[in-house]
């Protein structure tokens, strides 16, 4: 966050709270979303472990006793989990684009 941006904002008469919500938070959106994306993707992947807590989920397919000599279910369940994680990732990316319209403007 460049100090000059903050100076400009307070120079325009924004209060400290306004600077936070109207300048700092919007400017920080890409970083915030980047953190959220990492957390979301790993959480979706780790949620397969829910099966150990009898929580169900795709982990059930992976850990099923019949699967231990039969990789197809593991591969498919794993692929679904990855696809799901990437979908969540894409949604967050979309949200970021919607929240930061100024980043889409091409500077000529």
């Amino acid at each position: 966050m460049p100090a000059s941006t903050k100076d400009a904002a307070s120079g325009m008469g924004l209060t400290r709270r306004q600077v936070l919500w109207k300048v700092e938070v919007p400017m920080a959106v890409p970083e915030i979303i980047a953190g959220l994306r990492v957390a979301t993707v790993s959480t979706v992947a780790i949620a397969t472990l829910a099966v150990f807590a009898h929580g169900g989920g795709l982990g059930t397919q992976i850990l099923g006793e019949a699967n231990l000599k039969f990789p197809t279910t593991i591969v498919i369940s794993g692929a679904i989990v990855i696809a799901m994680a990437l979908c969540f990732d894409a949604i967050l990316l979309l949200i970021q684009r919607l929240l930061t319209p100024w980043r889409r403007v091409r500077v000529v």
Partner: protein
Amino acid sequence: MSLLASLLPSAAYSFGGAFEFIFSEQTSNVTGGHKVGGIDQVLELAATQIEVSILALLLAMLIALPVGLYFGHRGSGELVAVGIGNAGRAIPELAAIALVALVIGVGTGTLVLVLAVLGIPPILTNAFVGVRQVDRASVDAARGAGMTGFEVLRKVELPLAVPSIMQGIRGGSVNIVATASIAPLVGVATLGEFILGENVYGANGVLAGAICVAILALIFEFGLAALQKRLTSKGLKLQQASA
């Protein structure tokens, strides 16, 4: 079995009971008066967990650091580095470990391989970003002083990227240590033994295992933080202190 029901306490456990389990042997739930728990077993399992975690961390570093440093140095391949970082995190460990176990069998090798996959994304991304964000002026100065590309990387970019690189290694290590708990699936006895073996160790054993894993992850984190402090160059520390 709904998700909500699984979150409610299913069996009698308490923190007191868990600590008792850690420090003194308990009679197993399995009939026959078998003794479980106690500090000896805890330390033995913890040692295995530390061993596989360190091996996995080293393997992950061996793969991720050169790649991240190289792309960061060249200033290209951002898509590859960040892409691998993101996609790698999406791989479900459970599926990976089941699949690798099918292909190369159970054992420590399988475990280390899967855990290393878990450590690669943060280390790769942070190494790349760390080198990439080094002040271009410093790099230009080093080049002007007649350093070759490799010298620039080793003497300028690497020292300046240490904080970022170490942050990646710390993140990866916590992931690896915590996930090493699924080791019993491939026949390696780590602290996960307690966590996955409620039938044998009881609810207190599960909680005890979780506590021990958390402590272990913190020890790794603090140890690596101390290492980061030592590896960070004096000049960089002064710069950080004044910033």
